[in-house]
């Protein structure tokens, strides 16, 4: 082993399926002990990239190393360092929670008694003790996801792949998964996370790559990305249409971008610019809330009556629009 190689280092990674270049020259460097977000719409090549890095597919071009080991020529070594929680349940739905974890513990190399106690410990830590004896097919989406992640942590991997870990989950389950990811990374495990949700990448990842049509179209810290897309937008409806221009000037000064006057004569939409605050100091959500509160107070101080005030998160669409001048819907070219 060389002195602390990156957790992941990929250069010009290519994977084609027939005429479809699902992954088309991806470069990535992921530092150990961090959460790295791969952000992109369906069919952008996120899952294929994960499969290449997790040794499930062989690259057609380029190379990738995991902690310095080549994913193609040293696949077995790489497999001993990683765990994968796939986009679709990577647990056996016919087996119970306990059976799933005992099975995988045995495959990692634990003895029968060790495997049983390891399974019980993980079920307990993931709040699944009550469901331990039931078949996984009867679990709720959130429980299944937790069992899936628990299965990935049996071996304390150095690198954990989470492919869209919260897609389809309710908000509470999603928060639980986020807490788990934070706890895992706090113990030194590196996490590569794919997601379609900007706020998820923002909540968890320290660096983010935006991926589209098999290519990385933007890469950087959360701050870098925020600077390119803004923090979301404030939407207001005023009591008095005559004061709309005054309100627009005020909001532009505070939020940093031009106000859009909508066809509704009392409505205004203003994008929140990140401004001078250091990008990594808080989450984008907190920053946006802070800025919009200031804006609301300023309107009140000026005596402008506000009927509706809402804060919209920047969507993946806005990110894509900002980065590609093209919306993020690419259903017609979905990859495997």
């Amino acid at each position, binding site marked *: 082993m060389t002195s602390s190689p990156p957790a992941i280092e990929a250069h010009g990674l290519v994977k084609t399926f027939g005429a479809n270049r699902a992954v088309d020259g991806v470069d990535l460097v992921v530092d150990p002990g961090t959460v790295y977000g791969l952000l992109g719409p369906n069919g952008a090549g996120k899952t294929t990239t994960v499969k290449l890095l997790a040794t499930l597919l062989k690259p057609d071009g380029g190379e990738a190393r995991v902690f310095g080991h080549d994913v193609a020529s040293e696949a077995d070594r790489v497999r001993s360092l990683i765990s994968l929680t796939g986009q679709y349940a990577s647990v056996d739905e*016919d*087996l119970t929670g306990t059976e799933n974890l005992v099975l995988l513990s045995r*495959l990692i190399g634990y003895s029968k008694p060790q495997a049983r106690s390891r399974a019980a410990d993980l079920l307990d830590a993931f709040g699944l003790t009550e469901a331990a004896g039931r078949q996984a097919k009867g679990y709720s989406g959130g429980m299944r996801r937790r069992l899936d992640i628990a299965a990935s942590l049996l071996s304390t991997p150095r690198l954990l792949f989470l492919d869209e870990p919260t897609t389809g989950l309710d908000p509470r389950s999603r928060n639980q998964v986020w807490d788990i990811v934070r*706890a895992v990374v706090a*113990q030194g495990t590196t996490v590569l996370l794919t997601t379609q949700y900007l706020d998820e990448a923002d909540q968890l990842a320290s660096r983010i790559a935006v991926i589209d049509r098999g290519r990385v179209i933007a890469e950087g810290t959360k701050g870098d990305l925020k600077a390119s897309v803004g923090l979301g937008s404030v939407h207001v409806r005023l009591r008095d249409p005559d004061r709309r221009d005054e309100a627009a000037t005020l909001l532009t000064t505070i939020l940093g971008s031009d106000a859009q006057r909508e066809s509704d004569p009392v409505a205004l939409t203003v994008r929140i610019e990140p401004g001078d605050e250091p990008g990594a100091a808080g989450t984008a959500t907190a920053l946006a809330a802070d800025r919009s509160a200031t804006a609301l107070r300023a309107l009140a101080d000026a005596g402008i009556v506000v009927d509706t005030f809402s804060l919209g998160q920047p969507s993946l669409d806005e990110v894509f629009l900002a980065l590609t001048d093209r919306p993020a819907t690419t259903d017609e070219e979905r990859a495997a």
Partner: protein
Amino acid sequence: MSTTETTPEKATATPAAESAPAPSSIARILLADPPPARPTAWSASVTFGWRAVLKIKHVPEQLFDVTLFPIMMTLMFTYLFGGALAGSTSAYLQFFLPGILVSSIAMITMYTGVSVNTDIEKGVFDRFRTLPIWRPAPMVGYLLGDLLRYLIAAVVIVSMGLVLGFRPEGGLVGVAAGVAVLLVFCFAFSWVWTMFGLLLRSEKSVMGVSMMVLMPLTFLSSTYVDPATMPSWLEAFVNVNPITLVVDCVRSLCAGTPDTGELLTVAAVSTGFVAVFGPITMRLYNRK
């Protein structure tokens, strides 16, 4: 940075939520001892075999294949052919039972291909393939689990035969030896089905191809009648049919007259099946 800072407050921020995962206990789990040495090839295979047994436990209906089908075959052919071919059903049974034992269980092996085909598409296989284990272990595990099903079928058929009047000269030891040889052969023969299970797209096509292969193999064999009664061209095929070789060997063992030549032939044929279809299966598995 910010992720580590938020952990403690988040730990207290999820208090009353029933059965929610606790980040602090997750941290404890991750601080466990370094992972153990990877399992041996045998241990990993047996673990996958255990998975197959658990599936039988959770879906016991799948045992219909291995119980009802052999009972049906044994009853049908004993009474259909018994009088005509040997004068009486009990006389025919002494010849026929070892044969139908082999043919029925050879027929059942095709379900291996069906279960590989349906199982391999599930997400859990992505996880298995990212484990640092002996690569063929999941496939060998299937076959080990299937050995249990074959054994159940064998017990059903032999018990059935005993009830109907089968009285093997070789006694319990002879029959047990015959079943053991049969299980070894079926383990080897099943690699044909793991290959088809991985090669073909749908469960239906696996069934179709399996029947096309198995019908001639089991019927054009020494299972039902003595090959000496057949036209010479057919006899020539029947005599090299692997099913015939196994039937003859099991028949001798049940009769208490084991034949070293037959045993060596079955061993060679079994080795051949694994040597040819094992690597093809693994190539397909690695490419899935």
